[in-house]
């Protein structure tokens, strides 16, 4: 319990840092911060919306500490202000509308890559030096070095433009109405194939290598030798003895790499015009919609912290030494 409480305190501190960063950045740059933040709004926003926006971001006639308190109050009541590009929607509404699509891509691809990569890593470590290990492991590594931007562009061209077997973009067919119908869900699945596959491809190598390396180190341990000497079956040694223990570092890297996957997802979504956070943000960046750009940092940080917290819970479940 103490472990989890410490983690929660740490997460609150980390979130506070992200919020402080948002608060300080426009104020540290040369020029009038209000000008910088809302320069693009022009005549798009009515005066009362402008006043609300200023209040949200703490641009009030008070000394800096009070401005900071005002801003933190907005953030912790989850008031992220109005979007300039998508006026009259609030940043919250814009981001919550887009988040499920990003989560769909990130979670499906991560789980896919984690299971395939870890199993392949176990196989490579078990027969290290074998054919799969000598070619599979470096190949996976090279694959990981290919930016998601490149894999997405190539996949888009080959499968969607040249051979036309998969849709070029968007999350569902234009002729369908969103709803929980079979046709709609099938269309969503079909549109997700390319983005999910390109995202998963970029991650498999990392899991393969992490699992392989920690597994190889474990296979040298005495308890494995003892297990072999006792005549335990291969399968049991491989999965229950070595695999399970090797899973702990792999899980930590799973949670840590989610941030990178979110990043990768931003890119993939833009290439495939997929209506998630990345694509929304891309439009926001083009319009220099600062409230939206700042809001996505907070929501992405929150998603990272949630993923780390889940990894903490799983670690406690898997590692009896942390239960106390």
């Amino acid at each position, binding site marked *: 319990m103490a472990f989890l409480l410490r983690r929660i305190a740490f997460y609150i501190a980390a979130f506070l840092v992200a919020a402080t960063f948002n608060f300080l950045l426009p104020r540290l740059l040369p020029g009038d911060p209000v000008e910088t933040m809302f320069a693009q709004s022009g005549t798009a926003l009515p005066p009362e919306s402008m006043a609300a926006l200023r209040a949200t971001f703490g641009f009030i006639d008070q000394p800096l500490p009070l401005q900071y308190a005002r801003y933190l109050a907005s953030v912790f009541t989850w008031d992220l202000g109005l979007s300039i590009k998508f006026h009259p929607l609030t940043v919250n509404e814009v981001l919550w509308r887009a988040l499920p699509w990003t989560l769909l891509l990130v979670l499906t691809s991560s789980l896919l890559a984690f299971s395939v990569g870890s199993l392949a890593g176990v196989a490579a470590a078990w027969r290290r030096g*074998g054919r799969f290990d000598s070619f599979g*492991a470096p190949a996976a590594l090279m694959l990981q070095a290919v930016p998601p*931007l490149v894999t997405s562009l*190539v996949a888009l061209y080959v499968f969607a433009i040249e051979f036309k077997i998969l849709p070029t973009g968007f999350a569902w067919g234009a002729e369908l109405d969103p709803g929980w119908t079979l046709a709609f869900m099938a269309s969503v699945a079909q549109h997700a194939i390319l983005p999910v596959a390109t995202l998963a491809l970029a991650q498999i190598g990392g899991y393969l290598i992490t699992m*392989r390396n920690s597994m*190889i180190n474990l296979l040298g341990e005495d308890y494995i030798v003892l297990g072999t000497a006792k005549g335990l079956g291969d399968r049991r040694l491989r999965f229950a003895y070595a695999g399970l223990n090797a899973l702990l570092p792999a899980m930590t890297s799973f949670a840590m790499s989610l941030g990178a996957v979110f*990043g990768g997802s931003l890119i993939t979504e833009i290439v495939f015009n997929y209506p998630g956070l990345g694509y929304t*943000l891309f439009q926001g960046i083009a319009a*220099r919609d600062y409230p939206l750009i700042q809001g996505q940092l907070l929501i992405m940080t929150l998603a*990272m912290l949630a993923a780390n917290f889940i990894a903490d819970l799983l670690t406690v479940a898997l590692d009896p030494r942390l239960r106390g």
Partner: protein
Amino acid sequence: MLKTLLRNRKAAFGATLVALFLGLAIAAPLLAPYAPNQRAARPHEQPSSEHVLGSTRMGRDVLSQTIHGGRTSLLVGFAAGLIVTVIGVGIGVTAGYFGGRVDEALNLLTNISLVIPNLPLMLVLAAFLGQTSPFVIAAIIGLTSWGWGARVVRAQTLSLRQRDYVLAAELLGEPAWRIILVELIPNLISIIGFNFIGSVLYAVITEATLEFLGLGDPMALSWGTMLYHAQTTSALRVGAWWEVVAPSLALALFGSGLSLVNFGIDEIANPRLRSLRVPKKLRAAALHGLATR
């Protein structure tokens, strides 16, 4: 040390790839058939003997642009990699060596930088800084991405800290900076090298990503801005695949080269990870039992 590295086949192959791109970048004006921004062809010309990788929407030679673009991409990659490594090693060694309060504070800082997602943070920074030049991008990447390096270096320093020779140096009254520079850093060199190469790889990819998103300076020429222009002129959708393939291939090959070098370093530093070529008979025996280790 370099010899051991090059005897590893993966590392040698990777190093060759990296050297090839470095050579291309350095000798770009001599090797590129056209000036990078010259209108040398009609728009979107297919690859031919005259224009090996075709031309862009603006009629520029894609091969020449790719060769010249590598200069910026590699320079940003190595510069940002250097910043990441210096900050990471500085924080990691300081935390690991001094321990106590210093360690607690620096470790907290490191962990916070690890849970705040990098790309969204960089997007905020780059958006506020306006059309960012390649060097500002290098600085942004360098200042936001040192967390992993610091964590790894700290862990290794903590274990080196307990060795007898460090204790001996302390008893001799050596100052802390000398112990760090002379006793600790040389023993961390493989980790530092690994970290540096990984950071360069990350920086090259991230620079391309930021520029592709339109946060770079569109007048600068790099693999990232090439992809940005290809995207804004819908090169893929009109079938001009070469405009996208050339910078993509460059990014992918250069990245693969770096990661193979790192794979090699990892194998040399940790011999267990090596995939030894064992004669078939022996391997069969080994797989059976005795040497599951």
